[in-house]
């Protein structure tokens, strides 16, 4: 064991840079996942098969293929047709898109959990569909799904190091770069590994507490 605290000290400024990028990716990715997921969930309940079927097929495909390969696809293939994106932007879109297929399932379950009578009451009052969704169904559904969404944010946090592979310098990216410059891998990677556990564990405790308060 040749652990060197000086190396840790030397790495820390870059670690904090990495934390910042990780958080950016996480926040933006979550917002994208929450929004897109809701779109998928509502589209999957559409009465029109030409809306429902393709959305189901695409989300199913994205959910069952590796995020890493999707990131490669976004990073190398998409610029051939459209605008080139920065690694961070690509990472945000990749994370958000991948996890939107999971949050869609969460919303779906939340929407299914709203009693049938609520739909019937909305119909009886002749509420237009948009009102029914925004004023009746979603407010009741969202409350139940907050903890489940939170759990996916933690899952996304653990997948966020993948964006280092397409060149975004989040925590792991900084550790790897530092390692290849100085040939010291032990300290930076250990610091980053512990950082993930230190962030994820309290976050999951928080969500469990939230779960007890909101879902009952």
């Amino acid at each position, binding site marked *: 064991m040749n652990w060197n605290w000086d190396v840790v000290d030397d790495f820390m400024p870059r670690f904090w840079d990495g934390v910042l990028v990780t958080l950016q990716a996480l926040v933006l990715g979550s917002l994208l996942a929450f929004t897109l997921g809701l779109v998928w969930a509502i589209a999957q309940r559409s009465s029109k098969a030409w809306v429902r079927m393709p959305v189901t097929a695409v989300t199913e495909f994205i959910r069952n293929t*590796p995020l890493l390969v*999707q990131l490669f696809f976004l990073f190398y293939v998409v610029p051939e047709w459209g605008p080139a994106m920065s690694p961070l932007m690509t990472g945000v879109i990749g994370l958000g898109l991948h996890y939107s297929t999971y949050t869609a399932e969460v919303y779906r*379950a939340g929407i299914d959990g709203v009693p049938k009578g609520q739909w019937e009451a909305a119909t009886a009052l002749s509420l237009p569909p948009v009102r029914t969704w925004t004023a009746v169904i979603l407010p009741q559904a969202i409350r139940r799904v907050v903890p489940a969404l939170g*759990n*996916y944010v933690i899952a996304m946090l653990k997948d966020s190091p993948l964006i280092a*592979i397409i060149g975004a310098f989040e925590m792991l990216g900084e550790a790897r770069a530092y390692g290849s410059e100085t040939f010291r*891998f032990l300290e930076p990677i*250990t610091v980053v590994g512990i950082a993930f556990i230190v962030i994820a*564990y309290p976050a999951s405790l928080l969500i469990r507490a939230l779960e007890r308060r909101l*879902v009952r």
Partner: protein
Amino acid sequence: MTWGLWESYMLPGIWITIQVTVYSAALAAAVSFVVGILRSSPLWIVRFLSGAYFEIFRGASALVFMFWLFFALPIAFGWQLVPMWAGVLALGLTYGAYGSEVVRGALAAVSPAQREAGIALSFTRMQRLRRIELPQAWPEMVPPFNNLAIELLKGTALVSVISVADMTFAANLIRFTTNESAPIYTLLLVMYFVLAFLITRGMRLVERKAKAGIGQAPPPGGGLLGGLRRRTKTADPVTGTAGAGTPGGNQ
């Protein structure tokens, strides 16, 4: 892409992906059962340690752990792992933690009356576990294990990063050689999807057999478009919590 590239890179890559999936699934299954059973031990210290394992590996990022095994472990202890085994170890230990929640949940769902009947017949704790509780919990474990196996398959793409020549590694090489990215990555995604589909088919057979083994009706077939995931009431493999299909476990 030419046949030559396909033959020299992609075919061996598919084989490596399958190997990594099978080996890490085997390790994950072993960890799932051991840790899952220990987490319901009557001894608090055993419960605490196995619970700590679950919490730590649930919080850890598989990729960071894999990097640590690959880059840091040799420096720290002088053990140089073959890249593939570093990958298998990282995936197996991480997904085993999620799997332990599946096992624990399914064991907890066995009716307490069954435990009492076992006590009434003077079975020991181990006998109850082996002959009564595990066989009854097993069919409940199969659908969440199916989802977990698909997550694991997706996770195997990470080994390409530590230079294991799996499908993803091969695709990167081919992109590099041909300078064409769209066809190869599209094909790669489709191949992962097909493998996930095969896993689901296989697990459905396992579930059918498991249910028949305790005199229950087999599950509905689901059909080709039934989706690869099974909605489960027990642990969700991505978050390690109650399934996404049921926020908060139930309503």
